[in-house]
């Protein structure tokens, strides 16, 4: 099953709606709740990053019986040093973002923690692509 979403970079209220939709679909498909939660968190972090750091973008979701594959593509400023950005606590978030409860530098580490595979490719000035894979039928590990 394929789903795609456009994430509006100017609408903070709507940020998270794509993740919410996917969560609903996975529930309908009968995926185990701990796996759904891992996917929802990883997805939400990526979606929020897209809105806060890259002014929105596109999300493509591919659900098969064995896995979910999610691609976030934005045309934002890009990430200069991905390894550095992956470190817990690293954040370039503005005061405005911090006032909203984000900017702890935990989003990318969370995505890594909760996904089975995380791949980030980025080019400065062009944008960032985040790919997440979570396997669906490994119960309770």
């Amino acid at each position, binding site marked *: 099953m394929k789903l795609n979403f456009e994430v509006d970079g100017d609408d903070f209220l709507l940020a998270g709606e794509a993740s919410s939709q996917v969560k609903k679909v996975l529930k309908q498909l009968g995926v185990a709740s701990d796996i759904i939660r891992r996917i929802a968190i990883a997805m939400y972090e990526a979606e929020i990053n897209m809105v806060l750091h890259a002014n929105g973008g596109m999300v493509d979701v591919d659900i098969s019986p064995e896995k979910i594959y999610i691609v976030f593509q934005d045309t934002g400023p890009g990430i200069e040093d991905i390894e550095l950005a992956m470190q817990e606590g690293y954040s370039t978030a503005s005061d405005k973002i911090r006032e*909203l409860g984000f900017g702890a530098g935990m989003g990318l580490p969370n995505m890594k923690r909760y996904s089975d595979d995380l791949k980030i490719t980025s080019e400065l000035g062009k944008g960032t692509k985040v790919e997440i894979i979570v396997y669906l039928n490994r119960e309770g590990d």
Partner: protein
Amino acid sequence: MKLEEVKQILNAEVLVGEDRLDREVLLACGSDLMSDVLAFVKEKVLLLTGLTNPQVIRTAEMMDIKAIVFVRGKQPDPETIQLAEKKNIVILKTKYPLYIACGLLYSNGLTGDEKKQEEGYEVKF
């Protein structure tokens, strides 16, 4: 602990979900950082926070958190209330600051399984 009891301990006002106070919470988490909540929280947790923007509700939704307490008497934005209604999340509001609200709940028995929290994580998926 039932939400009804949380309401009494915190002398709280119910903003959303007056009819759903029979929900049970096992542990509480006090934080103003949503990514920390997303990193460390487990199921059936009550979230206490000084933040009142709609993304608090989104965060709760992703985590399957069923109830939130807004501390320091802060009134959430109307968008936040609407979203909580839509997502079926109970909202309470208390005058106590975060530290005291957490302390009151803890000392009244909302401690979770303390052994599991020693490493700082409440659970690992």
